């Protein structure tokens, strides 16, 4: 329960990062989600990624919609401003917030109900606008907070807890993000922290719209036999295309990899993303090929994970709009108001 406060005292020997924070400084309130919920693992991965990247917690703005996943921003980064918006509309609020102050890191957390149904339009348009953000969908194929209805990402034929098969085709948000022009597209599994943390770090350091679809099983309503979003099913069918070995701001320390085995991608902040290929010939910078591979594997019933596509030179909405480097919310009368002399001229032109 959220009114149970965590003890404020930290163990003095907790390790501090380069900006002086311990891991605890990136935590939030105690989660109110069900024990074993995949979403809590995602929150933990976000905490670790932000700590490891030395991000000052208050320089993050975390936004969400409505649903179990959208509750989670209260459970991490307690020193950041958060905004639990309305159902399916996190992307527009995040876009507006981002326009107001381009200097913060924007983290959008949503679910499959929030983003693939009611919010599909806003998800799509935020991707095509290239809003710089980390957009995480905690995808469990089910509406948890309203107790077990299928979501739009549930596979056709996958059964509900009561054994009823889902008659509808699923929305694949990764494929959509690829088609819509997202410049960092990944899929992960909440049961695989080793994969999640570097993917989130890569998204944080990315220069444009980063989307991560994280399969995050619902232990209460969608973890049974017959579900294609259960822990067991995902473990059996998860097929990673690559592993991110590290993201390090000091590329000179990187040992030269064996040719063809890995790919180094420079990030806008100067760090480097190194991908160790698990599939020969998979090129994560080729959008069309990524789409093709995804479709082929999906037809076989496999869940393709890892960094599926990235454009290391991606721009964002601010670049397209040519917005000033100084955040718009920091501009005052001197920069914004043309003044009375200009108005006199305007008036004269209207006579």
């Amino acid at each position, binding site marked *: 329960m959220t009114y149970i406060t965590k003890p404020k005292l930290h163990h003095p020997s907790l390790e501090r990062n380069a900006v002086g924070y311990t891991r605890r400084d990136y935590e939030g309130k105690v989660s109110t989600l069900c024990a074993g919920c995949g979403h809590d693992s995602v929150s933990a991965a976000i905490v670790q990624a932000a700590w490891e990247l030395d991000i000052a917690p*208050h320089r993050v703005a975390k936004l969400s919609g409505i649903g179990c996943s959208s509750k989670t921003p*209260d459970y991490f980064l307690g020193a950041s401003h958060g905004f*639990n918006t309305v159902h399916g509309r996190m992307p*527009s609020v995040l876009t507006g917030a981002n*326009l*107001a102050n381009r200097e913060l890191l924007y983290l959008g957390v949503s679910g499959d109900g929030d983003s693939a149904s009611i919010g599909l339009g806003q998800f799509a348009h935020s991707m095509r606008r290239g809003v710089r953000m980390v957009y995480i969908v905690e995808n469990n194929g089910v509406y948890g907070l309203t107790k077990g209805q299928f979501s739009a990402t549930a596979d056709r034929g996958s059964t509900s807890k009561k054994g009823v098969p889902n008659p509808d085709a699923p929305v694949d948000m990764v494929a959509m993000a690829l088609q819509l022009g997202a410049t960092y597209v990944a899929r992960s599994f909440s049961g695989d922290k080793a994969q999640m943390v570097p993917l989130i770090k890569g998204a944080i350091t990315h220069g444009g719209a980063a989307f991560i679809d994280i399969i995050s099983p619902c232990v209460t309503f969608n973890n049974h036999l017959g579900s294609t979003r259960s822990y067991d099913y995902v473990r059996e069918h998860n097929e990673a295309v690559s592993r991110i070995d590290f993201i390090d701001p000091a590329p000179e320390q990187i040992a030269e990899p064996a040719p063809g085995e890995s790919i180094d991608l420079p990030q806008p902040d100067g760090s480097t993303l190194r991908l160790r290929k698990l599939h020969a010939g998979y090129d994560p910078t080729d959008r069309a090929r990524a789409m093709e591979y995804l479709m082929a594997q999906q037809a076989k019933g496999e869940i393709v994970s890892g960094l599926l596509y990235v454009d290391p030179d991606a721009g964002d909405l601010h670049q397209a709009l040519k917005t000033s480097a100084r955040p718009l*919310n920091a501009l005052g009368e001197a*920069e*914004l108001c043309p003044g009375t002399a200009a108005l006199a001229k305007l008036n004269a032109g209207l006579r």
Partner: protein
Amino acid sequence: MTQRVEAVNDFVVKFANVNGSGSASANELFAKAILRMGVPVSPRNIFPSNIQGLPTWYEVRVSEAGWLGRRGGVDLMVAMNPQTWKQDVAEVEPGGYLFYDSTRPLPESAFRKDITVIGMPVTAICNATYEDSRQRQLFKNIMVLGALSALMDIDASVIEKLFSDQYRGKEKLLESNVRALHAGREFARDHLSPPRGPGLGLRVRRAEAVGDRIFVDGNSAAALGCVYGGATVCAWYPITPSSSVAEAFQKYCEKFRVNPETGEHRYAIVQAEDEIASIGMVTGAGWNGARAFTATSGPGVSLMTEFIGLAYFAEIPVTIINVQRGGPSTGMPTRTQQADILACAYASHGDTKHVLLFPQDPAECFDFAATSLDLADRLQTPVFLMTDLDIGMNQRLAQPLAWSDERRYDRGKVMTADELEAGKEFARYKDVDGDGIPWRTLPGTHASKGAYFTRGTTRDPYARYSEAGADYIYNVQRLLKKFATAATLVPAPVVRNAEQKTRLGVLYFGSTAPAMDEALHTLAGQHVHLDAMRLRAFPFPASVAEFIAAHEQVFVVEQNRDGQMRRLLVDELEIDPKRLPPVLHYDGTPITARFITQAITERVLALAVSPKGTTQGERA
């Protein structure tokens, strides 16, 4: 024979055209030419939701006395559209004039006996003069303008000057327009004026009645108000009649907000995927400390209501410009109404109330747009600028736009990093100043203090999630207190007392103002005296209840079917509805002075003849 209308500087001309035929710019030139003669004009476009081929009208009120509302009735109909011929002919005042293209002869039954018919074979003249079909069409309008200007004594030099402004650097176009203008003038002199023609009893005489006033549409003025008021984020979705607000904002930002050296923009405009996203972006930007607005119309407001409730409850500055049109549903997208009053005042589910501002003309659109940005920040709540198509899309003679270089943006209660560092207590939803307005912090302000979680769900004064009844009540009661504070900050109503003491009053607002000005004048001439109050905002300042209390009957004049402002007055001020007789105009055209005068006269007469001893009789 009915006596011909003879008038100088006081008449109504209406042009009946087919849209897409290039008539709009010629019609505008006609209005501007009269304005340049020093005579006030007030033109109104009555147009279809269509691009080409449907009827469109342009009605010009000419009034040296300065009446800028619609008068009602038409003295000269320039009937250039066969589709609407019958209704256009019928609309002319007895003794008035009908100008038409006489290229194809019409049977006598097509005309009326009590009006003067002026036929000019415009098509034939143009076909004889021009080879190109497009030129034939375009110069037809200019020839008509020439003929009318000659008949009305409008100086050719005034129109030539307007041409030279319009076609600066395009000498060929300038020259051909001037030629067409004079061809029209010569034809009118030779064939339409006495002794060979019927002539026209409507004249324009040079005057000095315009002063330093400007001629501008409300949407442009509102957009400029947003530039001056410091709006940096605009998110919108195209919808008639509001689209030109965002387009004008873009135009003025390109003029004033682009760094000439770096090319950097001190603004961001996003054409969103729908109105829900527009208001979402505005909400996000407002939460993050940028002044943000959206411009929309009724259907857009309907879509935005969930977000409006969130912004109200989470206390986020949001400015919404609602250029009202005829509803419900798609209704009359190109016609005007004041029919979103209740939808905006109480927008969203749950107990919500919102601040509304009602500008009367473009000058107030400019002023109130900047004011609404201040109020939204001060009150941390949605603020609606309630204009309508009549104000928004028609050019109107208005006072010059006014600003002071001393004016500072009121950013409201935003706690700074220094204040947090100094140990000032931060409680996001606590009333610490007694005005119901809490303090807020912006994301990224301080490393360890002042962060909070914004939500639409209930919380305690420290923004912690809480479903406790007492916390909820504290919060919604504080919002009521904040709304009472708003009543002290919004633009005050403007009162104009009758020349003699009266028990009758009238309340009106927005685009009704110019027609009301004339109606009050006419009524006073008929010994019907009314004290008048022009409402400029909701919540109602205390003076509104005082005004109503000081009168026995107060007419409420508005442009909707249900008397929405009257309902708001009855509900919010607990006034006996019997004391507020409604005067309602809602056919989609702007209200006229004649309509108001007649409705109030009838009502006053009815009150006067009621049997003595009844409350109504006594009140009259």
